[in-house]
């Protein structure tokens, strides 16, 4: 099994938005980041993949041969959580544990307690507990993560897990992804959407870029960093370099942007500096290009 999920032409039509024919893979054994601007269709795609939203067309194949998100066997292999109001706001840690123990075959109450301690959320067995509505956004997200990680799953699907976390906990989240993947080397996978690309780069092996309901680029981060280059140079060479670049931003003193690596020699001839882009720089370049194409 090479892919945790193979997405074949999934579509979803709303009145004002269409997720159109998504073709993508989530490779098995790696952490995949779903990157895109607000409204690109990331949450819709994640919800469809986890059986939260129905699709209009297309198919997703999970773990090589499973396709039915209503099948409990598949439900139990996927650990899903969204960023906002994942549980009712009047619930406590104890109520979450009670519900999840009944709702899934593989929820481990002891592991949940350990994760709650690790995230400094308190003890789920204590009598007096805070309701979710009394917690900060960051602590709510920590609670959701503790709950989903307390299940013995093979695929974690997390919608914006880092958005409300402080930088320190984002770092812990990256470590958790690594731990989760290494516990059963090659058998587990993570799919998460994020806007905090710089903070999550350490945890990202594979990236899927989305814009306007479509996948515009995907691949292993290392491969993408070979496919694309970061170019910057002086303003006087901007006009000459621009036709060879896929994204461009310039001022009075200089310019910067992303180009295909195959154009590196050509660009060097215009006295530009060529570097390996970070995932953040790559994302900005690819998404900016998609935005310009849409105009």
């Amino acid at each position: 099994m090479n892919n945790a999920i193979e997405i074949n032409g999934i579509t979803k039509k709303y009145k004002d938005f269409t997720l159109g024919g998504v073709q993508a893979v989530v490779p098995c054994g790696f952490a995949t980041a779903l990157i895109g601007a607000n409204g690109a269709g990331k949450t819709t795609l994640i919800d469809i993949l986890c059986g939260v939203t129905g699709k209009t067309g297309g198919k997703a194949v999970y773990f090589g041969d499973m396709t039915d998100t209503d099948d409990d066997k598949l439900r139990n292999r996927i650990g899903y959580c969204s960023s906002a109001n994942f549980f009712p706001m009047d619930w406590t840690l104890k109520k979450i544990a009670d519900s999840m123990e009944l709702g899934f075959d593989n929820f481990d109450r002891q592991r949940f307690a350990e994760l709650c301690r690790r995230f400094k959320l308190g003890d789920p067995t204590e009598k007096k507990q805070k309701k979710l509505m009394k917690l900060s956004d960051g602590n709510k997200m920590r609670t959701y993560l503790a709950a989903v990680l307390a299940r013995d799953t093979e695929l974690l699907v997390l919608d914006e897990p880092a958005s409300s976390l402080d930088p320190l906990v984002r770092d812990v989240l990256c470590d958790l992804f690594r731990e989760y993947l290494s516990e059963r080397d090659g058998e587990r996978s993570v799919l998460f959407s994020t806007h905090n690309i710089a903070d999550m780069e350490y945890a990202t092996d594979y990236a899927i870029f989305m814009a306007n309901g479509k996948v515009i680029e995907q691949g292993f981060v290392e491969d993408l960093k070979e496919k694309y280059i970061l170019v910057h140079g002086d303003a006087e060479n901007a006009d000459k370099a621009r036709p060879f670049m896929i994204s461009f931003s310039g001022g009075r003193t200089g310019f910067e942007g992303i180009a295909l690596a195959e154009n590196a020699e050509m660009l060097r001839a215009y006295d530009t500096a060529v570097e390996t882009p970070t995932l953040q720089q790559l994302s900005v370049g690819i998404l900016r290009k998609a935005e310009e194409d849409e105009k």
Partner: protein
Amino acid sequence: MKSNSLTLSQAHKIYTGDSMGMFAIKLSFGGILMYSATIFTFFIIMLLSEGNASDALKELSGTALINTFLTMDAGIVLMITGLMQYDKQFPGGKYFRTVNGGFDTYRKMKNASLIARVIALISIMLVGAIFDRLGLFKLSFGTNDVIYIGAFLLISIGLVNFMNLIKNPAVRGLSTPFITFAAGLLGVILPNILDGKIYFALAVAVIAVPFIVISQKVMLSDYKKNKWNK
């Protein structure tokens, strides 16, 4: 826990954190408390105007006021719980769609909630009957009134199910109290017209059972089609 082995009570606990029994107790307790608080408040008002407790009790007892309180308080409890929504955009909505059994667990939870509401209705009516028997707050036609009110509130449970079919939340929220109380108040008015004869109330109660079952099925199938996976 495998979905096919989930009981109604367990499905209810997944959604609310409370078992069906605990939910029924909470609802019953809430309804009884509301009814007691209402009649106590009016008793105090009467006490202040009449000057002594026995005159205040006499003034309240045997009037349609007590029947109306019983109907309204039980009706409010049934209406609020009957309109509870677990849509995707509400807290917990996405989580509930990923638990074992999916929609089947939702159906079990809704059926458990229905049973808990009927238990709560019976409990509140029993307290109304006990107050009447003890001579504390007499109903116009005694226990027969309780059966009338209970029977028509059973009908209102089915009506609330049908009100869930209304897509616009504002229209649904505003129209449901009118429908619920209109049905419930028939249970207050009809005993006076029918001289408290119990046969009509029993017939309504018998009709209410298939009516509730059908309304529950219609409501669940509409929810699955129009909301569950949309």
